[in-house]
Every structure is written in C-alpha cells, then in structure tokens.
C-alpha cells in the first residue's frame, strides 16, 4: 500500500496544482480578484509564487442618485508575486479564454 505512486496521477486535490507547476494558471481570490500567471511555487496552504502576473479586480459601485450599478474592472501587472494562500478560492491549470 505504501508504495510510490506514479508522479502523473491525481489521487488528491493538491496533485492537480502540482501538475500545474511552471504552467499558466488562473487563480480566483476573495474579493472579486483573479490572477493569471505562471506557477513557480506553492505549499499546502496554497501560498504561491507566480511570475508574469496579471490581476483583474472587479468592483461594483452604486450611483447614489440613479441607483445604477457601475461595474469597473481594474488591471495590474506584477513580474513576480507571492500570494498568501488564505484568500485563495480556486486554482485552474491552463489558460482558456
């Protein structure tokens, strides 16, 4: 039972993230933030280091007079970024737009 498993297989969720090392990933964070970048490191808390990152933040404001919802999208770029794992919601390997 305690043998070594083939490194390709997925038998626990973190394996999915391991297979994404040095690949492009989409990371959804709390607070309507999304990152796209190359995954260079992570641990069991989902702390991560990403390279060539683009962050997209979506915020909704309500116009006080017309009560219209104004949706604004802000984009920022970072060459190298450490992300603390506790804000991570979802990680998806590969970029498909």
């Amino acid at each position: 039972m305690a043998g070594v498993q083939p490194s390709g297989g997925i038998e626990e969720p973190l394996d999915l993230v391991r297979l994404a090392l040095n690949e492009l990933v989409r990371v959804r964070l709390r607070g309507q933030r999304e990152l796209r970048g190359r995954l260079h490191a992570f641990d069991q808390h989902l702390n991560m280091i990403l390279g060539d990152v683009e962050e997209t933040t979506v915020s909704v404001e309500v116009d006080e007079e017309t009560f219209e919802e104004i949706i604004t999208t802000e984009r920022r770029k970072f060459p190298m970024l450490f992300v603390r794992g506790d804000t991570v919601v979802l990680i998806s390997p590969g970029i498909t737009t």
Partner: protein
Amino acid sequence: MLFFSVFKTLVGKEVVVELKNDLTIRGRLHSVDQYLNVKIEDITVLDADTHPHLLSVKNCFIRGSVVRYIHLAPKDVDVELLEDATRRQLKEMKRAQMSASS
C-alpha cells in the same frame, strides 16, 4: 516551511508588501518567521496622502495573516529552484502522511 525558507533568502532585499486592507508598504526585508510575519525597514507607504499618520514610520512589523501579496523582484528569485523545492516538499508531505496512516 517552503516559503519561510524562500523569504529567508530574500532578507536584505527590497520588497513591496500589499495588505488585505489595501495598504501597500515598500521597504527592505529585515526578517521573517515561520508564520511569515515580516519586519520591514526604511519603509515608504504608497499612497501616503491617504495614510499621513504613517509618514514618520521608519520600520514596521507586519503580521503574516494580514498580507495579501508580497511583490518580489524577479532577479531575486530562481524559479527553477522554487519548482524543485515545491516538488520536494510535496513528496515529503506524502511520505509523512503515509507513515502516519500505516
């Protein structure tokens, strides 16, 4: 422990720490502990107009749990080393799990 080791190699380097409350602090990494609490020296607060009370602060201690991002300089980071270290650490975790469950 992986990121504790990573940040130990970054001591003395310039970093930008972005907090969950959107406060962003640039400075030199003085030290780090296992919780990824950090001490930053010679700080400047980005967007200082909205945080004038921090203008006179030179050094600070930041609790790890309030950090959102730490921006790094690519030249300070060896990505191949990071990827190998990540794989190694995962293997160790699995080994520890298996010996605990058997």
